[in-house]
C-alpha cells in the first residue's frame, strides 16, 4: 500500500525532516509510526497525503507514484486515504451528521447513500445517537471518534492517524486504538503515528521508528 525508498524531505531553509527513509507497508497491514516529537512522523504523513512534496527518493501510495503527481489530481488521491488528526479538524458550525457526511458530499454520492453510510460509520464508533448534535457538545474522546467516522465513511483502503490519542486519557486512548485495530481487521491498511509506547506493547503491532528524520528501527519490510 505504501512503498517508501530513499525518501528525503528538506524544508526551505535547509532543515532535513526526513533522511533516506525506506520501508514498505503491505496491503491490509497495520503499523505504528513512532519516535520522539520532531523525528519526522508528521512530515512522513504529510508526504503520503501530498500536503508536502518529497525532495528526493520515491514514494508510492496505493500504486501511485507521488513524486510527480499532478496538483489537479490530488483531491482524488486524498479520497482514497482516511486521515485522523490529533485536533480532530471538525467543522464546529455543522452537526455530527454533516461533519461525517462531508467526504461523501465532496465525492458526489447520492443523498440516500450518504445517509445510509454516515449512520453506518457513526454506529461503528458508537455515536449514532449523537448525529444531530454539534461537535462542541461532545467530549474530546467523542469528537475524536467523529473524526474517525469521517475518515472511514468513504471506505478508503488506507487510514492514517496523526497522534489520534494525544489529548485523551489512557482508557479513551485504548478505545480509539481498538477502533483502528477493528478497521484493520476488516481489511483497511492502517498507519498510526504515536509516541505512546504503551499502545505498541499492548497491540503488538509492527513499528516504524524515526529519529531525527532517519529510520532507526522497523519491523515491517525494509524496501
Amino acid at each position, binding site marked *: 500500500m505504501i512503498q517508501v525508498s530513499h525518501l528525503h524531505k528538506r524544508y526551505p531553509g535547509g532543515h532535513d525532516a526526513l533522511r533516506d527513509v525506506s520501508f514498505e507497508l503491505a496491503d491490509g497491514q497495520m503499523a505504528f509510526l513512532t519516535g520522539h516529537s520532531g523525528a519526522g512522523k508528521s512530515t512522513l504523513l504529510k508526504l503520503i497525503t501530498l500536503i508536502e512534496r518529497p525532495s528526493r527518493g520515491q514514494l508510492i501510495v496505493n500504486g501511485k507514484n507521488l513524486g510527480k503527481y499532478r496538483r489537479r489530481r490530488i*483531491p*482524488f488521491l486524498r479520497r482514497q486515504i482516511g486521515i485522523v488528526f490529533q485536533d480532530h*479538524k471538525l*467543522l464546529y458550525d455543522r452537526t455530527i451528521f454533516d461533519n461525517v457526511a462531508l467526504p461523501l458530499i465532496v465525492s458526489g454520492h447520492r443523498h440516500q447513500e450518504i445517509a445510509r453510510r454516515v449512520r453506518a460509520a457513526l454506529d461503528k464508533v458508537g455515536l449514532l445517537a449523537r448525529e444531530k448534535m454539534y461537535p462542541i457538545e461532545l467530549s474530546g474522546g467523542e469528537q475524536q471518534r467523529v473524526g474517525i467516522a469521517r475518515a472511514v465513511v*468513504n471506505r478508503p483502503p488506507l487510514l492514517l492517524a496523526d497522534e489520534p490519542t494525544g489529548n485523551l486519557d489512557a482508557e479513551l486512548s485504548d478505545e480509539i486504538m481498538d477502533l483502528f485495530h477493528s478497521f484493520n481487521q476488516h481489511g483497511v491498511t492502517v498507519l498510526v503515528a504515536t509516541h505512546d509506547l504503551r499502545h505498541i506493547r499492548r497491540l503488538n503491532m509492527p513499528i516504524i521508528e524515526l529519529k531525527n528524520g532517519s529510520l532507526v528501527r522497523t519491523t515491517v519490510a525494509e524496501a
Partner: protein
Amino acid sequence: MTTYFLRHLQVLFQSLGRLARTPFASLMTIAVISITLALPSGLHVLLENARAVTSGWEGGAQISLFLKRDTSDQVARALAEQLQRSSRVAKVDYISRTAALEEFKRLSGFGQTLNALERNPLPPVLVVYPMVGGPTPVDLESLVAEFNRVGDVEIAQLDMQWVKRLRAILNLAQRGVVLLGVLLGIAVLLIMANTIRLAILNRRDEIEVIKLIGGTDGFIRRPFLYEGVLQGLVGAAGAWIVVHTTLVLMADPIRRLASLYASGYELRGLGLLASLGLLAAGGLLGWTGSWLAVGRHLRAIEPR
C-alpha cells in the same frame, strides 16, 4: 445529470442560507451594489425620457425660404401654391415684405427707428412646413437643397439647428452614462471581490478540511460563486427598485411641468429588456467578482 443538478440546487440553498445567517453584512453589500447600479440605470432612464420627449419636436421643423427682394407678391403667391402641391410639403405660409416689417417692428422694439428707413429692407418669406410622419420619410436636407435651386429663392434655411444640437448633447450624455456605467461596474466587481475575499478568509478552516478530505477546487469554488451571483442579482433588483421609486416620486412634478407645456407626457421606466439587462449585469458582475477573489485566494489556503 440529475445528481449534478441536485448538487447545484443544494449549493444554491446553502449559499442562500449562509447569506440569511449574516443578514446585516449581506444587506450592506447588497445595498452598496444597488446604489452603485442605480446611478447609471437612473441616468439611462432619464436620457431615454429626454430622447422620447425631443423626438416629437422633429415635427416642428420648418424651412424658411427667403425670396429675392424684388420678387412681386403675385410671383411669391404662385410659388407658394406650387410648393403646396408637393406631396412632401404639408403647409406653406406666405409672409409679404410689409407683413414681415410689421412683425419685425412689433417684436423687435425698434418700431420708431425702423420708420426712419427709406425703404423696407426685408425680403418676402415663404415658411414651408415639411410633411413629417407621412408614409415616406422626408429627407429635410435634400428638400432644402432643392429649394435653394429655385430661381426666386435667395436662400432656404432649415430651422432645426437647435434640435440637432440638443441631439448631439444627448448623444454625448449617452456616452458619458455608458462610461460611468463601466466605471461603476468595475466598482461593483471590486466590492464583490472584496466581500468574497472576506468570506473565504472567514471559512479558512472549512476550506482546509475540505481540501484534506479530497474536495476539488471546483467544489470549494462553487458556493462562493453562488454567493457572488446571488448578491449581484439581489443588488440589481435593488437598483431597479431604487430607480422606479425615484420615478414614482418624480411623476407628479413631471406631470405638472408637462401640463404647463400642454403635453401629456408620462415618465417611462426601465423597459422589460433594460430590466433584464440590469439583472444580468448584476449577476455577471457578482459572478466575475467572486471568481476573481476565489481564483486568487483559494490556492493560498492549503492544509499544513
